[in-house]
């Protein structure tokens, strides 16, 4: 009989050891690190670096809708032309030629005048995910006035270094949540979380208690923020 005793002691010991280990294991975010996702074929190889780095043009000069709508928007043809009409230096470069073909129509008549460019979407979230640019711009650029390129870079990477934009962040839910749950503890006065159950399903321990719990409960980490 003592063997059974020994064995059970051993098993219990093993189990509790495992539990303790698991309990204190670090909160490593289960998500892929930054890496270069494959390049996307575009109608013309738009030089972001030229515009954003060399010319120091603000992202939202072209992606103008970002601050007032959920989507950042692709700059309308009109905008490109608006500047490039008067930039004679590059007027004859192939990319600009193509650009003007879309605006004035091509000689062979394949492209009608004022045809919008068929850009391919690069940072294309699943259709059931609704990311709101406006909110993020408001929070980081207008309220915390951080530099635009940094803020956009959180999700879009360092576009200023690229020609054609290319995804470098995971954009997985865990990746989004790692910010939301850490940065936006959802608590009511008194520090006790109310309502928002989604809070409890998260992996990440939010700093609610650290924040003294006087944050209000319009938490951007309830599921309906992004999924509707």
């Amino acid at each position, binding site marked *: 009989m003592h*063997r*059974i005793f020994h064995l059970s002691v051993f098993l219990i010991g093993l189990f509790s050891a495992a539990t303790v280990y698991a309990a204190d294991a670090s909160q490593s975010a289960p998500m892929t690190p930054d890496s270069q996702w494959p390049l996307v074929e575009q109608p013309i190889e738009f030089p972001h670096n030229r515009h954003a780095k060399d010319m120091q043009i603000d992202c939202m000069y072209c992606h103008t809708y970002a601050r007032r709508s959920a989507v950042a928007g692709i700059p309308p043809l009109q905008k490109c032309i608006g500047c490039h009409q008067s930039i004679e230096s590059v007027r004859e470069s192939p990319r600009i030629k193509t650009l003007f073909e879309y605006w004035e129509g091509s000689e062979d008549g394949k492209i009608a005048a004022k045809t919008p460019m068929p850009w391919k979407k690069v940072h294309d979230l699943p259709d059931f995910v609704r990311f709101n640019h406006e909110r993020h711009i408001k929070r980081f650029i207008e309220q915390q006035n951080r530099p635009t390129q940094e803020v956009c870079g959180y999700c879009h990477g360092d576009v200023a270094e690229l020609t054609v934009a290319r995804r470098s962040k995971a954009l997985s*839910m865990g990746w989004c949540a790692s910010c939301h749950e850490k940065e936006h503890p959802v608590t009511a006065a008194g520090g006790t979380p109310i309502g928002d159950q989604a809070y*409890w399903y*998260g992996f*990440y321990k939010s700093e609610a208690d650290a924040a003294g719990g006087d944050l209000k409960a319009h938490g951007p980490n309830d599921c309906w923020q992004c999924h509707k």
Partner: protein
Amino acid sequence: MEKDIREDIAWAKINGDVLKSLENPRKLYWVIIALALAAFGVGVACEVYQYNTGMGVANLDNPHVWGLYIATFIFWIGMSHSGTLLSAILHLMHADWRKPIYRFAEAMTTFSLMTAGLFVLVHIGRLWQFYYSLPYPNERGIWPNFQSPLLWDAMAIFTYLSSSVIFLYVGMIPDLAICRDHLHPGWRKKLYTLLSLGWEGTDRQWRNFRVTYLTVACFLIPLAVSVHSIVASDFAMSQQPGWHVTSFAPYFVAGALYSGCAAIITLFIILRYVFKFEEYMTLPILKKTVRLTFAIAMVWTYLNAIEFASVWYGHDVASKDVLIQKMVGPYAYAWWGMIFCGSIVPLVLAFKRFQTNIPVLLVISLLLNLGMWLERWMIVSPTFSHGYYPWTWDHDQWPSWVQWGMVFGSFGWFTLLFMIFCKVFPSVSMYEVKEMVYHRSLHSKKGDTAEQGAH
């Protein structure tokens, strides 16, 4: 009283008889396999159709969202319990008459669990997203809902399945060794060699073996109980009339053991006939099993009565409505069928002359299982068709052929697994039968010194 087993069977004969069951199958075997395959095929076809078209083809509706899948799921889970009862519980009780029959019972446990698992899957609307319900580090960074009985279900079943597989396997090791030693070379020999883990039958091996076997048995029993209590909580933890019943956990466990025992009787009879195991699966053992079944049947009936009474004399009007609906509503025939098969039929088992009458027992055991299946259906459906909200009470909501097809298929699947098992592994535990014979002989010689002999 006559003996459970002859004490003078030669061990060689035991080996011989059992190993014979592993010999090349007769035609009948292939016929059964073919039928089973066909039945399973039907089930698969239905699932494929449902998977591609949508759950609608099962003719479930709003609010009648659960149907035969859940009912049959419970049925198979229940089926699994008797195996554990015979192998683990009776093992601890030193009821050694179980020894010739526990092996296939244990196999039954494993396979009915594997069948039950399928129903969880076919029931789910988005099978392809099933993994969402598993707690594992994922790139979405969220847990499943640990509050949901369904989640407990999933966990309990997986644990139970894995441990019963271990239990079944561990218990087989000595026998596998025997097979290894007696079979002429071939893929089987390789298999047994691999599985028997170099069993030599040395003293040390036997000691460790017994300890392990006992430990796993101890581990298994609480599991068995918890599993069906948790299945019960799927319903008891909800708020619906007819489900929100405190006595559900014991009720389900009793029901489980009940259907399990019934199934054992059925298989007992079939194996006894097919493999000529009259020597080992003797009538006295059958009688014991039958008595056990009878006892459980009465417990189940009693718990039923309790449930009805508590509803009837309680103040929960809604539950009362549901109960009345069960008796007189569209499901009345099924409900009364369940009462008849579950509570009336077993009374026959009270009579000695039937306790060993094989044809009668075969019929009865099948009826009992039918009754238990109906019971599960009667738990699930009436509550939907007659819930809290009158506006949504459904008109005649009858399961479509797709649902029936899958229920049918599940029996094919189970038979398939079981038949294969019987051919590949000894369905009677040789070494334990030997023990049994040995102890009995000692017993008959030196009277009650048998106890020490056991250890």
